């Protein structure tokens, strides 16, 4: 079969592009090198939908960030993705940082960011009682938001699949040939043909670009480390609290998350191991030191997890979006504010495909919404109602996050079904809480076994090879 369009990479960018394209009458293939989607930069980042005052005016980053931010609210409502427009503050700790704040205000105004204004220190203290008394003022951006980033990507991909798209996982693209009017994609899961190709391969996007075109940018992956604190710390910040940006990026932030936790981080360290998001003692110490400047009272006594993410940074101060070769679109080098820009980048991809001659009719029957039951978010009546509909919503499996067996079973049978305990975590939220899956892990394994009819020893924690259990105990009896 020849697909109309192949999307390489199913992070939030590839998934958003697939979602947008699935509104058209096309055959659509999504290739993902990992065993699940949303496994790269999308799974581990600050989970912020930026307002858009940060990128230089006139750049694609500025345009797509502001546009993507404006699109996020309705999309999240339609697709049942946790999102909250909490607003952000860029804190200034000196007069020279107030200059930076004023510069960001000018940029924001030029970029068309709605509602931004400069706050006095007292206004900041009234909004954020726990911030340092050293704060001199701040830039307030009411449109900044917090989101569940992997669910954003999963929602896009699931909806695309409902509309007929196919997702091939464990399909790493290893080479691309031009065959007449189409591309032949060699992958670790076999060969595929497509008329149009979209490169959304994250940190792998330079390698993919170079398979069809001259090298035009260099990937410079960059690792950022984080702390995630228990929900009992979640109300320490009411907004996303940034420090003034510097040459290393947006600096260490403190923010509530949509799950009710507090996120603290990241640092920024170049890495030549883009598939290895590890934590380091120095990185975690750096985050603690910088965060203390924003909030001296912050402690890590209630830390529930450290993690790190890899940014798809390049040597260019701009997204690498464009036509890389005939009928071949790059959505490459998507660094921050990539998550914020994702739906706008998807629209841009459609525009570029049309420039390449892509014509397809818009489907009137395309699905653009997703329903998802989140037991924890329901009120008492809602809870009673879903348990009546399916008693499995009455059995709590993850006690920390109040996730029911019904939600886990929903996840297992979702349009892009997970194959690992962490895949369930990303879809249902199990193991996200303070016990980090210590209690619910064995029960999730049991439900996966039952629903998929596989053995416990075959169940993965996360990526390929990450087997949880080694063997059965004393199965063989001699004599």
């Amino acid at each position, binding site marked *: 079969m020849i697909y109309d369009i192949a999307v390489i990479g199913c992070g939030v960018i590839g998934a958003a592009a697939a979602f947008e394209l699935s509104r058209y009458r096309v055959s659509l293939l999504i290739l993902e090198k990992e065993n699940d989607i949303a496994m790269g930069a999308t799974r581990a980042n600050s989970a912020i939908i930026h307002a858009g005052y940060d990128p230089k005016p006139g750049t694609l980053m500025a345009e797509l960030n502001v546009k993507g931010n404006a699109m996020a609210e309705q999309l999240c409502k339609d697709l049942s993705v946790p999102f909250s427009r909490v607003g952000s503050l860029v804190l200034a700790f000196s007069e020279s940082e107030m200059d930076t704040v004023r510069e960001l205000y000018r940029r924001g105004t030029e970029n068309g960011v709605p509602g931004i204004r400069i706050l006095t220190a007292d206004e900041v203290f009234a909004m954020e009682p726990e911030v340092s008394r050293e704060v001199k003022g701040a830039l307030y951006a009411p449109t900044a938001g917090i989101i569940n980033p992997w669910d954003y990507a999963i929602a896009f991909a699931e909806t695309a699949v409902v509309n007929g798209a196919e997702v091939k996982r464990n399909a790493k693209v290893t080479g691309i040939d031009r065959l007449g009017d189409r591309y032949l994609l060699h992958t670790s899961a076999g060969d595929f043909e497509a008329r149009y190709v979209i490169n959304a391969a994250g940190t792998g996007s330079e390698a993919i670009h170079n398979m069809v075109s001259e090298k035009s940018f260099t990937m410079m992956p960059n690792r950022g480390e984080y*702390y*995630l604190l228990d929900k*009992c710390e979640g109300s320490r910040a009411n907004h996303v609290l940034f420090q003034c940006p510097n040459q290393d990026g947006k600096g260490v932030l403190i923010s509530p998350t949509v799950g009710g936790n507090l996120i603290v981080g990241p640092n920024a360290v170049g890495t030549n191991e883009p598939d*290895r*998001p*590890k*934590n*380091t*003692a120095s990185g*975690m110490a750096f985050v603690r030191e910088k965060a203390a400047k924003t909030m001296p009272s912050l402690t*890590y006594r209630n*830390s*529930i*997890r*450290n*993690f790190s993410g890899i940014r798809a940074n390049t040597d260019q101060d701009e997204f690498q979006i464009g036509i890389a070769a005939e009928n071949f679109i790059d959505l490459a080098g998507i660094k921050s504010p990539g998550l914020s820009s994702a739906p706008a980048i998807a629209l841009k991809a459609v525009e570029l495909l049309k420039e390449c001659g892509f014509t397809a009719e818009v489907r009137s029957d395309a699905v653009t919404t997703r329903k998802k039951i989140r037991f924890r978010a329901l009120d*008492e009546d809602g*809870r*009673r109602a879903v*348990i*009546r509909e399916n*008693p*499995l919503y*009455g*059995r*709590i499996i993850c*006690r*920390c996050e*109040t996730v029911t*067996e019904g939600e886990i079973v929903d996840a297992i049978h979702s349009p892009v079904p997970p194959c690992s305990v962490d895949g369930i975590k990303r879809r249902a939220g199990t193991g996200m809480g*303070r*016990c*980090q*899956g*210590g*209690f619910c*892990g*064995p029960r999730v*394994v*049991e439900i996966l076994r039952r629903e998929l009819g596989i053995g*416990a*020893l075959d169940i*993965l*924690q*996360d*990526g*390929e*090879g*990450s*087997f*949880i*259990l*080694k*063997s*059965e*105990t*004393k199965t063989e009896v001699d004599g």
Partner: protein
Amino acid sequence: MYDLIIIGGGPAGLAAANSAWENGLRKILIVERDREPGGILNQCIHNGFGLHRFKEELTGPEYAGRFISMVGNTGVEIMTDTMVLEINKEHEVHVISAAEGYRVLKAKSIVLAMGCRERTRGAIAIPGDRPAGVFTAGSAQRYLNMEGYMVGKRVIILGSGDIGLIMARRMTLEGARVLACVEVMPYSGGLMRNIVQCLQDWNIPLYLSHTITDIRAENGRVSHVTVMRVDESRNPVPGTEMEFDCDTVLLSVGLIPENELTRSAGIEMDPRTNGAVVYENMETSAPGIFACGNVVHVHDLVDYVSAESERAGAAAAKYVLDNPCDDPFISVRAGSDIGYTVPMKIRVNRVDKAADVFFRVRRVFRSSVIEVSANGETLFTFKRDHMAPGEMEHILLPRKVLDAAAGKDITVSAREAE
């Protein structure tokens, strides 16, 4: 309307139920989230339980079984596979289950007996990759003893808490190689008998003042661990690196009382125990709501959990059958080298012959004196040959000592014997 709803059907909840029944309550309900009562004892298949309570050595399931059959001989109702979502000071308990749906139950009194959970990798910020093969000791124990699976073959244990020590022996018996037990403190966090029986008897080295400084992965699973010695401020000492080739890391780095329900009900908490502030009868700051067992403070021996919970159950019965108590109280303060005390408050009028006071010391003592004082004046002393943070201490404070405090707060402190 129940007389008493007990949240949690582990050793604490079972003992409280039995005692409340014996003290005259008749409408008692235990709500248990798991499929059967017994709590964490069900996965503790080793022996050593019950030496104090039953004067014999039982396994965890046997110990739980004793209480399950005692409760079975009463009219106490046990609701399993049922989760409590919320409680409040009006004694309403919101529960859900697959079988019965969402319900709001009411009671004249409540006993909190939710137990504790293990600290995780996230709580101690171990650097390195984030592969499969890092487990808390308790979850590995569940996989091994309840589900019948080995989580690994070459194991490093971080922390010398009792569950980690027990698992060192258990994994060895199942054919795994336990390469080391690594403890950041200069002393073990577990019971001496477990150090001997679970490590020394199996030639498993215990590295005190050491920690894991890096976890590395190959193909998604733990492959190597770096262990380093730490200085007095627990910072790794360069040049002391030891590399271990292993597939598993078990964490036994502490237990945290599980008090989310308690907090959300607005009950006063103690930051040192992470449990509720309790009076001598295990009543919390919310009248008619009692707490007992590991949800109040982490115990070493289940025997003491049972004893404490029996006091809580009896007190709940007294609360329901007599009348609520607002007698004046004195505070019990943790003095020098004392981590915390339970109870934190004593209503002296309510103490019959003596008040049980439990505490942990902050460092290892040999020959030592526990001193109880009020207003700088020593009221009573107790002698001990050995005390360690890993071993909970207990004193019985006679009523006359409490009376001698004359309404002043008392302080418990520890010092070397002269």
